[in-house]
Structure formats: C-alpha cells, structure tokens
C-alpha cells in the first residue's frame, strides 16, 4: 500500500521567488489582523485550526514524504495534550513551558514506536498505528495512571491570560501564541524538507533499496521521521489542549487519527501548504455539514469528502499547484 503512494512529482526545491515572499508576507499580515476583526469564538476556532495544521504537517512528513502510513497519530496528539495538561495542572508549570516538553516527550514516543514499525510496511504498518490510536484512550483511562491522567474524567486546565500590559483577550493571545509556533514549525519543516534530509525522506518512500544503496540509513531516518512527526503532532495536541482547557480520553478517540489523515490527503500529500487547507477542512466542514442536516450530518460530511477527492485527487494543494502552473504557462505564452 505505501509502496505505491502516488504522489505528484515533487517540485524543484528551490528558494522562494520574490512573488512568493510577498505572498507569504501578506498572508502573515492577514493572519495577524484577523483576530482583531473576528469575534473571540472565531479566533478560538482559528487557533484550533492552526494547531491542526501543525499536526497535519507532522503527519504529512511521515505519510506524505516518507511513505509511512499512520492511522494512529491521534495518540501523539493525546500524549502532547496530556503532557501539557499534567505539567500545568499537577506540576504548576506555566503554559508556555509545556510546549517544548510536550514536543520532546512525543519525539521520544514516536521514535520508540518507529523502531518496531520499521519492520512493518503498508497495511501492516497501518494496523500497528491504528492499534496505537485505538489503544491510547484506554491507556489514558487505565487506573494505574489515573493519578496523573484523571482517568475517564480527564484534566481541566486554566486558560492562560495575556501577559500583563498586552491588551489582548485570552483567545487573541492564545491565537498569537499558537501562530508563533506555527511559524517556527513551518519554517523548520520547510527547511527540513527541501534539503538533504527531505530528499532522503522522499527517496526512502520512492525506492527504499536504492536509497539504502545511496548511503541513506533508512532505519534511522524512518524512525527519526516518526519521532519528528510525533513531535509536531504532540505540540499541536498541547496547543489545542490549552485552547480547549481540557484533555480527556474521549477527546482523542480513533476518529481524531482518521481526521488527521483526512486533513493530510485533502490538503495534499507531500505538500507543506496543504497542511493549512487540510486543517481548515477538518475544522470547518463538519460544522457546515451539521448546519445543513441534523438528520445525518456525517452522511453529508462523507459526500463532501468523496466529492473533494473527485475534484481534487491530489488534494487542494495539488489543485492550486496545477492552476498556478496553467496560469504561468498561459502568461508565458502571451
């Protein structure tokens, strides 16, 4: 299954052109203005979407770039969320200090999980990760850990205020806090994926034997990618837990893992910008479906999903890329 991942050809990984820089700057400005135009509730939603975008980028590194399918990334989202929640609630840490720790914990967890997963391919890896996703809520509920995890009741955390002197509401502040992490992690991800390591990841996905013969330590790369992917997802989990002020086993049911994968594919496999499209989809489409039909909201969601795959088999990012390509060639021919 993974061996035949049919990705669009990777575009030349060059530095951004001037136009792209301008585009990015505009986007960033818009992102900074938005919270002052929208109500707190919308800002909160966008914060969640940003957190999802980080998780999706993490999963995309693993699945899109490196060809290892994960149906259980919700587990790392959960670990990140609980790491933050427990540190804040039980150890009294400030919220901002928990993020790197959540990332680190997930990196280790992901790396360790990646080791046995090395032996598994395609569907077999899908099962192993699926199992992880299914088991995680159970483990979180387990009585031996109840002292930290709060068992089935979960952990309630206090929502952080903006630092003194910063005239922002809690939601706005958290939005900027999350945006900061988005920028950091996306820049790092972009750097990572366009250089030596990124090429190695794709090489392993496309032709593992040749990759090995070219001197790539496939085992180390694959498990490290698992770790990095988990790190991203874990940070996303921590950020979203802080925004939601709550972490419980039911927050991380297996459907979260599936949803993240949906986000990856809908956004566009092996695409960095795709993470944002995917995040917007998983954040907002269920609400829209719910607004249209109470009777069977998910039937509608399913229809959206299938329709989208018809229209954009390579995800939104794939379509955007195609349109841009057409546009460029048309302009050049004029």
């Amino acid at each position, binding site marked *: 299954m993974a061996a035949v991942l049919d990705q669009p050809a*990777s575009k030349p990984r060059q530095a951004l052109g001037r136009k792209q820089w301008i585009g990015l700057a505009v986007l960033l400005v818009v992102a900074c203005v938005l919270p002052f135009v929208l109500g707190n509730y919308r800002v909160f939603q966008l914060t969640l979407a940003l957190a999802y975008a980080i998780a999706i980028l993490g999963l995309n590194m693993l699945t899109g770039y490196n060809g290892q399918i994960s149906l259980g990334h919700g587990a790392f989202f959960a670990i990140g969320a609980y790491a933050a929640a427990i540190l804040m609630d039980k150890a009294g840490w400030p919220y901002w200090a928990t993020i790197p720790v959540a990332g680190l914990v997930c990196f280790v967890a992901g790396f360790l999980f990646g080791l046995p997963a090395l032996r598994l391919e395609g569907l077999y890896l899908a099962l192993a990760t699926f199992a992880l996703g299914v088991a995680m809520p159970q483990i979180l509920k387990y009585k031996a850990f109840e002292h930290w995890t709060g068992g089935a009741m979960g952990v309630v955390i206090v929502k952080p205020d903006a630092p003194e002197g910063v005239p922002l509401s809690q939601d706005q502040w958290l939005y900027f806090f999350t945006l900061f992490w988005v920028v950091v992690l996306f820049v790092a991800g972009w750097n990572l994926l366009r250089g030596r*390591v990124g090429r190695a990841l794709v090489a392993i996905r496309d032709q593992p034997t040749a990759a090995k013969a070219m001197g790539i330590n496939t085992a180390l790369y694959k498990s490290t990618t698992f770790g990095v992917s988990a790190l991203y997802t874990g940070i996303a989990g921590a950020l979203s837990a802080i925004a939601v002020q709550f972490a419980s086993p039911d927050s991380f049911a297996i459907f979260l893992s599936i949803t993240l994968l949906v986000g990856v594919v809908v956004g566009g496999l092996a695409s960095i910008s795709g993470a944002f499209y995917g995040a917007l989809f998983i954040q907002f489409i269920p609400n829209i479906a719910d607004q249209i039909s109470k009777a069977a909201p998910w039937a509608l969601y399913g229809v959206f999903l299938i329709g989208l795959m018809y229209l954009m088999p390579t995800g939104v990012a794939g379509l955007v890329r195609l349109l841009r390509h057409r546009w460029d060639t048309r302009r050049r021919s004029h």
Partner: protein
Amino acid sequence: MAVQDPSLPLLDVRGVTVRFGGITALDGVSFAIARGAITGLIGPNGAGKTTLFNCLSRLYVPTEGSILFEGTPLEQSPAHRIAALGIGRTFQNLALFRTMSVRDNVMVGGHCRTGSGFLANALRLPAVRREEHRLSDQAERLMALLDLQDVAQRPVSDLPFGTAKRVEFARALMSEPKLLLLDEPAGGLNHEEVDGLRQLLRRIQSELRLTILLVEHHMNLVMRVSDQVVALDFGRKIADGTPAEVQAHPDVVRAYLGAEA
C-alpha cells in the same frame, strides 16, 4: 585500519556462495579486481551477476565466503555504509526515485558525501547551506557530463529508458565512488549509443580514476572496453582473463556466446 598497498586488489571476492532456498545463485565465486581497471562480468541469464552486485552493496548477505574491499571485509559494514566506503552502483532494472526530478535524483547520490542531520537541516545552519551548494555544483557538473541538463527539472518517471539509465549513472557518480558497479548500462541502446557509452566509460575511468565492474550482454562493448573479463555460469566462475582469452574459452562459447559469437 590496514595500510593500503596499492598493488593489492581493490576488490577481492573470496569463495562467495549465495543460496535462496534450494537455488544456488552463486557457488564459491572468487576473483580480484585491480585498482583502476575495467572488469567485465559476463554470463548467461540467471548466472548470478546481479546477485554478486547485490552482495557487493550488502543488499544480500553471502551464505559463505567473504568480500574484501581495500583489504577490509565488507560484512563489517551495514548496507548504508557501503556508498561511503566508495562503492557506487546502477541497477539493472532502474531503481530511480520516480517522483523526484532528475536533479534531485542525482543529488541524493551525494548523500553519503554529506553529513548534516535533522536538526541542522531544520535550522538551515550555514554549514548546511555550504554543503547544499557544493552538492548542487557537483550535480550540475555531472548532469552536464551525461547530457542531462535539458531534463534536469523533469520527473524521472517521464523519461525514456536510455535517459533514465544515464540518470542512474550520474547518481552513482555523485557518490564519488572508487569502485563503480554498472549493471547492463547498454541495455536498450542502439549501436551508436553503445559506442558513445564505451567512450564515456573510458573517459570517466581515466578522468575520475575509477575502477569499474561492468555487467553486460553487449559483447562488442565488453570486449572492447574491458581490461579483464570474468565469466559466470550457474553461479560458478568458468573463465577469468583478458577479453581475448575469455572470448575464446570453449565453456564460454558453449554456455554463453553460442555458435556464431
């Protein structure tokens, strides 16, 4: 580390046997390759030539025997260290990274000559930039050598077979090998192109000071370009010598070349 005696063979294959279940693909094969030589490896289909290559790149582990490269047994190194030791290769049936551009494919070849890790890449440290520069210059040069500049940005999956083979070639050279293993580089080339390949081989041998082990069924090429030819049949070595000697060897004629060689 043993001190390298330049008179020692670069590669010394000693009694290598490979079995897959009941099939003996290689059966006690021994031969040596001198530094700087081009050695032809011939034999009927299924004789074990590719299998030997796979042993040299540690994708297969010999059931018996050992392989010394620059005096050191290969089995001490894991597969992904082989390229760094200085053994580069191409694949018989193409093993390119099919979604990547020609350029990126070639760049991956330089993986073993660079060392930056995840963190350094994520932070894009100055060292990483320098390394990337060096790599892309080198790739540019090799693509020029192999006439690949025009397709540099094309995904390799669109390329005709002959061109794809050249990409493999460039990718292998990117690792700055001491020993280059070529598995049927002339497959699918016409007369004229084979001639071009012959010249290219000679050129890189002298310019880049490479040692080449060449598997090929194109007799014209093998006999004209090789300094030494080794012939296998049913996993056993049946002849080893100069091209003329091997070509005239009765076993080689019977098993491999057929009546009108």
